């Protein structure tokens, strides 16, 4: 009997491990492919050829062409660079910034905590995308401004998470022990707080990649993200939406690309969460 009860969690853990390896490989490949997307395009994604405009999918043009005769397959591949890397930059930025603010608040306490957290509440009180729209409208379009607009409304989530996690760590007895060992605050934060709170923050960040990718594409769709002719999935859907009735593949191609990438990152996030779940230890 004992063998069985020991083996079941082991099998579950092995399965989870395989899942983790699989999804991180797929996500890794996606990121690498996006990085080298320039070299993977069969045609120049910017080259217009009016004689080929609005062509249906064929062996030469796998996903057909848009109304300027640009190869859609190449444009979807080229679009991955902007879509994926601006998302990763956004998530990386808000995770880092939010975590630093959160730890700082928890550590300083008193008025610093109150002021910064009320500021975070203020940002949380705005309806997300509407605020991002306003910011992007004031600053003008462009990927950088879209990233900035979404970062402005997304960092408080991480600040709150990091703050509550840090406060929980501060209550633990080992904190008093390391303080008595004579470690400076910076050392305690770097060596003890960060490694202990990294898990939940990392999981939130992984799960946020999908959401952020959709929101960035949404801003681009509304014309506040990447400027044409730069290929970006959101703006490509927007450009081609009046062809939806006649040539649906032109609009669907970037849509499916968004869907697949979001799904891959969400599944990876879920797996990482399961992996770090203390119930899966041992």
């Amino acid at each position: 009997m004992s063998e069985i009860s020991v083996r079941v969690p082991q099998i579950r853990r092995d399965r989870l491990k395989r899942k983790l390896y699989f999804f991180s490989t797929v996500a890794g490949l996606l990121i690498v492919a996006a990085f080298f997307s320039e070299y993977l395009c069969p045609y120049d994604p910017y080259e217009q050829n009016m004689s080929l405009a609005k062509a249906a999918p064929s062996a030469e043009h796998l996903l057909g062409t848009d109304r300027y005769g640009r190869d859609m397959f190449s444009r979807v591949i080229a679009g991955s660079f902007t879509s994926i890397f601006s998302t990763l930059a956004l998530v990386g930025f808000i995770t880092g910034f939010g975590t630093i603010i959160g730890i700082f608040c928890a550590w300083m306490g008193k008025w610093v905590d109150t002021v910064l957290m009320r500021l975070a509440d203020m940002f949380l009180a705005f309806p997300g995308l509407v605020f991002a729209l306003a910011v992007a409208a004031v600053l003008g379009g462009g990927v950088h401004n879209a990233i900035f607009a979404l970062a402005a409304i997304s960092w408080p989530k991480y600040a709150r998470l990091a703050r509550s996690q840090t406060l929980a760590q501060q209550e633990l007895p080992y904190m008093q022990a390391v303080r008595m060992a004579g470690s400076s605050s910076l050392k305690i934060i770097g060596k003890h707080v960060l490694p202990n709170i990294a898990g939940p923050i990392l999981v939130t960040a992984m799960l946020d990649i999908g959401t952020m990718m959709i929101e960035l594409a949404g801003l681009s769709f509304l014309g506040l993200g990447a400027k044409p002719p730069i290929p970006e999935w959101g703006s490509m859907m927007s450009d081609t939406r009046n062809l939806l009735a006649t040539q649906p593949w032109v609009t669907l191609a970037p849509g499916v690309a968004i869907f697949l990438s979001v799904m891959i990152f969400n599944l990876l996030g879920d797996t990482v969460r399961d992996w770090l779940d203390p119930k899966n230890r041992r």
Partner: protein
Amino acid sequence: METILEVRQLRKVFHEGSWEDLLAVDDVSFTVGAGEKVAIIGESGSGKTTVAKLVTRLLDVTAGQIFLDGVEITNARGKELKQAYQKMQMVFQSPIDSFDPRCTLGDGIGESLRNHGYTKGEAKTETARLLALCGLSPDLGDCYPYEVSGGQCQRAAIARALAIKPQLLILDEATSALDVTVQAEILTLLNHLQQELSMSYLFICHDIALVQDFCDRVLVMHNGRIVEEGTADAVIRHPQMEYTQMLIDSVL
């Protein structure tokens, strides 16, 4: 006898100024001499642990003064506090929780050493020596706190407290989480260490039987005040206060 720790009219109010303020420690004064073993006993909630945390400055003092080796540390911060921690260290109640779960025991002990000017190599050798001094195999330094037993972990915690050669060791219920045989081992170790290193102990405890064997002097706390003070034998054999008598009776 030289005084290592002097506490004058210590007072601590939690949540001061709010409607739920709580007077945890009131008008507590005592001294600990060099090489002396002083115990603070009392039931739970009597303020013993608060006194320990005030003395080690893990909590801020509401009123009163604390002198460590002649230096006032009542409001010490930063560098002053780091210097104070070179002279006094603490061993905590729950051994396993007093180590960072993501660091090995060796890292925990080494951190103290590294903070006080040891190089990485020196810290490693010294950690092994300290572990051996506390009756542990140096290999245990590579273990995580949840991989060892409570007794082993408490020995490692004592090793960590001894790392920077303090003159005063504060033991906050350091043996309560351990079973009786391990408790005896730890006390033997502490006795042995005291003879070797001539430290003072401030022993916070609710077990009177332990105190009688181990300590020179006893302070009895009740409701945040010291109600009785004297040599261990005198207090336990001829208690003056009803409360002390009650504590003693509760053991038997």
